[in-house]
């Protein structure tokens, strides 16, 4: 099976003033479609740093990143937004919804960004809303949604345009444990059903249940 995303010997050093922080130290890993990869590790171990590099939001100090067999680690700021738009869906701990847009409009925004035609945007957003079981709240503003509902909107947004890869950083950290579990199951369901590669960063021990594969980070390295 093809790897959706591959990290080869990735290192990230932050320069914090004059102090150098080695956040990720020679990490290699691969994501496969239809699979949920869980990234665990203590605070400060480099999980977010790793995920940002996987999502082409942060550039590694050294190493190679391949998406769909295409090397993207050498690309510049001119090309990377298009890569993110084409291949990724993101889910964040703090939702990052647009407060002035309703749930539906938040999804539509991304469909517009991805160049969907006006006629298809309505159908597409409706089907995404149904996928995350949010029909009753579709026209609510984020302000009026619960944490779990917000995260559902975010998942629908991440699924819009049918990207190959879904990356989620602590998607359940702001949710109670029952809602958190629902969200994780929703992510898993989409990975399996639509053949997506999903990576989830989580502290949550209950997250193992939805994972096909787990890696543990410690001090920027994968612990075997």
């Amino acid at each position, binding site marked *: 099976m093809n790897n959706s995303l591959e990290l080869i010997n990735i290192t990230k050093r932050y320069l914090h003033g004059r102090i150098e922080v080695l956040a990720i130290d020679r990490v290699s890993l691969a994501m496969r479609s239809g699979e949920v990869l869980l990234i665990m590790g203590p605070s400060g171990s480099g999980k977010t740093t790793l995920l940002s590099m996987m999502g082409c939001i*942060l550039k590694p100090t050294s190493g190679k990143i391949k998406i769909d067999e295409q090397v993207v680690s050498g690309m510049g700021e001119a090309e990377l937004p298009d890569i993110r*738009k084409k291949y990724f869906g993101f889910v964040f701990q703090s939702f*990052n919804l647009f407060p002035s*847009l309703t749930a539906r409009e938040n999804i539509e925004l991304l469909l517009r960004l991805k160049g969907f035609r006006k006629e298809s945007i309505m159908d597409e957003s409706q089907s995404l809303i149904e996928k995350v079981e949010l029909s009753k709240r579709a026209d609510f503003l984020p302000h009026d949604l619960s944490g779990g509902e917000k995260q559902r909107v975010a998942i629908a947004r991440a699924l819009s345009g049918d990207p190959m890869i879904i990356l989620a950083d602590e998607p359940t950290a702001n949710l109670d444990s029952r809602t958190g579990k629902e969200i994780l199951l929703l992510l898993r369901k989409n990975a399996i059903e639509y053949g997506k590669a999903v990576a989830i960063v989580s502290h949550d021990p209950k997250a193992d249940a939805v994972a096909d594969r787990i890696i543990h980070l410690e001090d920027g390295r994968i612990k075997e």
Partner: protein
Amino acid sequence: MLWLAWKTLLFEKVRFFITIVGIAFSTILVLTQIGIYLGMMGNATSIIRNSDADIWITSKNIQNFDFANPMPEDRINKIRAIPDILWADRLILTWGFLKTEGGGQEQVQIIGFNPDTGVGAPWAMIYGRPSDVKGGRYMVIDKSSEHRLGALIPNSVWELNKKRFKLVGISGGIVSFTTSPIIFMSYEQAQNFTEGFLEPNDTSFILGKLKDKKNINKVINELKKTMKDNDIFTKNGFMLKTIKYWTIQTGIGMGFFLTAILGLIIGGAIVGQTIYSNTMQHLREFGTLKALGAKNEDVYQVILWQAAMNATAGYLIGSILIILLKEGIEKSGVPMYMNFMIILVLFIVILLICLLSAYFSIMKIKNIDPVMVFRS
């Protein structure tokens, strides 16, 4: 992105409202300054503009229409002798005192024109005809002087420089730059009753019309050679001379100009400041947009659209208010000139200023690191 800009603006209605009010205020400020300036300049040159003449011959070193020195009227023959000239006529501008009802007096500007040809005659009559001033102490007064002179009743008799004149006509909207009431009368009357100011056989201006306007430069050069004691202007040249005098020499124009610029700066600052604080407040959303695959230019568009929407909404309100207020302002005696072109040009200026004022916001967005979306 237009859509997102619109949604975000409407989401914060109070801020949107305050911004619009600010821009509307600045629009009103700038448009009134421009309108009043143009209105005053229009008044200062209205008699020149409404005359049918191509050429104006004035006393030497004249500064503006209102400050004409007398010259011998028979110089008209030199002009009539030129084959390219279709007609030439004389026009007097002088000053007098008109007694008002209560026994007070007002200084008035007097225009003496030839009622047979109508050159320099009042062009907008409410009552009577310009030629009615012919053959005696008859005059036309402008309606706008009523609040200074009292009611203008047709055929009433007034005392002008101790002589009795009958009001035979009322013009509408002919106002001098100095706002002194304008009185029209026949050339002969104007020449005869202002002793000490105009000698008999003196005139203030000689106006000429060409058979063919193409020859204007040739005729003007010829006149400059033969009439060394006079200044020779084209119609537009004389208007420009008058406008320059009031604008630059007296500094009146500069005052309007500075206030107008101040209005533009206020407008720009208001938009710049709201757009910037709006940007700061929505940094996270803009970071999210970038993380999700929007290019910098996409995000700039949101900001620029917002600036444009603020500018357009504010300007629309401001200019509509000006159009509604214009009549009232004019009724109060302040001249104001406004047309579609001015409104359009100022819109483009204000729009550009608003777009420029988004510069700092754009710099801010350029430097957003989308990694921020992972931090809570």
